[in-house]
């Protein structure tokens, strides 16, 4: 198993806009704060966390939609930030993105054929007729009627539009696809169609995915390994089964216990860890462990002073907690 993508100490800070009369010494939102992970060839890495944890910003940094404040992203052992010209174009071809909102990510004034063939046009691939037949093949691959290439996005439902977005991302035969909440705007029955489609495409084309989502059940279903983020940090990272069966970080444990199980008897009898309060602001994140303000097992002063390292807690599983210990949650 070779590493396709390597992320080292990635940080992305956004300056906070200040008023005219207040101090111009700008404060910063630490959206992603020192995140490192690798993605192996052919696997799916799930990035999961609540809103504002930095999962989407991480995704955007991976494909150079955002320039990291510091740290590096290496794709096939080459620093993405240093790519220029032809190499950059090749990178753009190898790495694609699927967006959350299938309504906003398709240009309403372009036909489906134009949308799906645009990457081919940009990269100068094929003649017009070749592209047309390629587009038809792509539409067929994602389960749409190839005859529909002259239609416009508004003529399709949410799930069909997401298929169009997937067809577009496949057009250049990429190696890596970053999926940013690809199913969260869809109804459950359609969500399952798209999740299955993504799995089938992975098998067919040997794709590697970074799958960003807030839905823990969907992430578990599709991922080989899962990283849990909280306030710009990875708090736990591991093989899906270990992470869900024996979560070590108290945040992972409370997240899993918070997701209601679609089984009335089980759900009503299982105990929930209810976290107090809200996620603190990423402008002034708590000192020490960022989770200590809401953590049910925090001990002071260590948790509020010393930042825990992401350390190995079990084979293939790392957690950033001073008191990490396994606790089975999901089976309730």
């Amino acid at each position: 198993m070779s590493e396709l993508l390597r992320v080292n100490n990635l940080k992305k800070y956004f300056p906070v806009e200040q008023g005219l009369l207040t101090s111009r010494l700008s404060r910063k939102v630490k959206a992603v704060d020192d995140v490192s992970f690798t993605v192996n060839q052919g696997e799916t890495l799930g990035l999961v966390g609540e809103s504002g944890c930095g999962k989407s910003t991480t995704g955007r940094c991976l494909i150079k939609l955002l320039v990291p404040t510091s740290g590096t992203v290496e794709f096939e052992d080459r620093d993405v930030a240093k790519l220029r010209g032809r190499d950059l174009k090749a990178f753009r071809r190898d790495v694609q993105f699927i967006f959350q909102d299938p309504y906003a990510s398709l240009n309403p004034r372009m036909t489906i054929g134009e949308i799906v063939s645009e990457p081919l046009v940009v990269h100068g691939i094929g003649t017009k007729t070749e592209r047309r037949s390629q587009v038809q093949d792509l539409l067929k691959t994602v389960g749409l009627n190839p005859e529909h290439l002259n239609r416009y996005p508004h003529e399709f439902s949410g799930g069909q539009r997401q298929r169009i977005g997937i067809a577009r991302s496949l057009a250049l035969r990429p190696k890596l696809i970053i999926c940013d909440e690809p199913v969260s705007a869809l109804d459950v029955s359609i969500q399952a169609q798209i999740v299955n489609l993504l799995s089938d495409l992975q098998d067919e084309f040997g794709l590697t995915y970074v799958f960003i989502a807030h839905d823990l059940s969907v992430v578990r279903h599709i991922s080989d390994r899962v990283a849990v983020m909280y306030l710009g940090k990875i708090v736990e990272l591991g093989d899906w089964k270990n992470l869900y069966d024996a979560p070590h970080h108290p945040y992972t444990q409370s997240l899993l216990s918070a997701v209601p199980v679609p089984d009335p008897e089980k759900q009503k009898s299982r105990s929930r860890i209810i976290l107090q309060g809200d996620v603190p602001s990423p402008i002034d994140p708590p000192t020490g462990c960022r989770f200590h303000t809401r953590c049910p097992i925090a001990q002071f002063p260590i948790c509020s002073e010393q930042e825990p390292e992401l350390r190995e807690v079990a084979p293939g599983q790392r957690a950033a907690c001073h008191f990490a210990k396994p606790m089975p949650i999901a089976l309730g």
Partner: protein
Amino acid sequence: MSTLLEVRNLKTHFHTRDGVVKAVDGVNFNLEPGKTLAVVGESGSGKSVTALSIMRLIPKTTGVIGTDSDILFKGESVLGMDDAGVRSIRGNRIAMIFQDPMTSLNPVYRVGRQIGESLILHKGLKKKEADERAVELLDMVGIPHAGERAKDYPHQFSGGMRQRAMIAMALACDPDILIADEPTTALDVTIQAQILELMIELQERTGTAIIMITHDLGVVADMANEVMVMYAGKQIEYGTAEDVFYRPLHPYTWGLLESLPRHDVSEKGILLPITGQPPSLINVPSGCAFHPRCPYAKDVCHTQVPQLTSIEDGHSSACLFSGDPGFRRETASPSREVV
């Protein structure tokens, strides 16, 4: 136990330029005091319109409620009331929480004042009394430092706190029925857990009946006594939570349960999605509206509209074959583990 709310053959149709949208097409149910009814379905299935019809919030210009429809609150017809009558119930005896707490709070009024508004209107409280009561209510829904936070504007609240404020507002007049339309959909799971816990706790304390509209079957399993599954404006299954989760009758319910990824089973299951797309409500398929997506559809399903029929005690389904003893599926029994 007396029935609190009876919905009889509710039909809410919207006349649009493209045709008549049958958003709700013949819905019946009863709600008992202190119980929670979950209304489940995908987008466009008519769950929100059902709620808005009960609240008499359907715009008169486009929306038409069928003449043979009726909604009885404590035996009195809500549909037959004049505007003053509706106002005396809405927000007072029947209150509603909406999905998006930001757009349902007025940004230019202080939170405490907004909560007190219904008390002034319905209970005749003085402004000062209403303000005091608003602080108590905010405290009850778990807002820390309620006295000061009551003076905040909605933008100073986080999403979870806004939803708590909405709940405080809805509960201000101690309603008999609380209609919650996707109350946690816009919230993160840890906040969702807080809000659901709060609703369960408040229900135990106040005895309010809840109509919980949601697409999240996990939330249903957590909250519901009874479940109504909707598809294309129609009720397709109705029963207790245990009936619907463990002994579902309708193929659409099977499909819903089987397309859910689960995190409570030790191995990854196989997702069996429902094929096709939800129908347009202008051109609802003939016969059973689910037939184009149903793997068991026969010719008769194309022509005959199935009625919601009681199959077992209190458990009904709108499928022509639900009465067949062999037409069963053990979907989500506690032991369901697909390896």
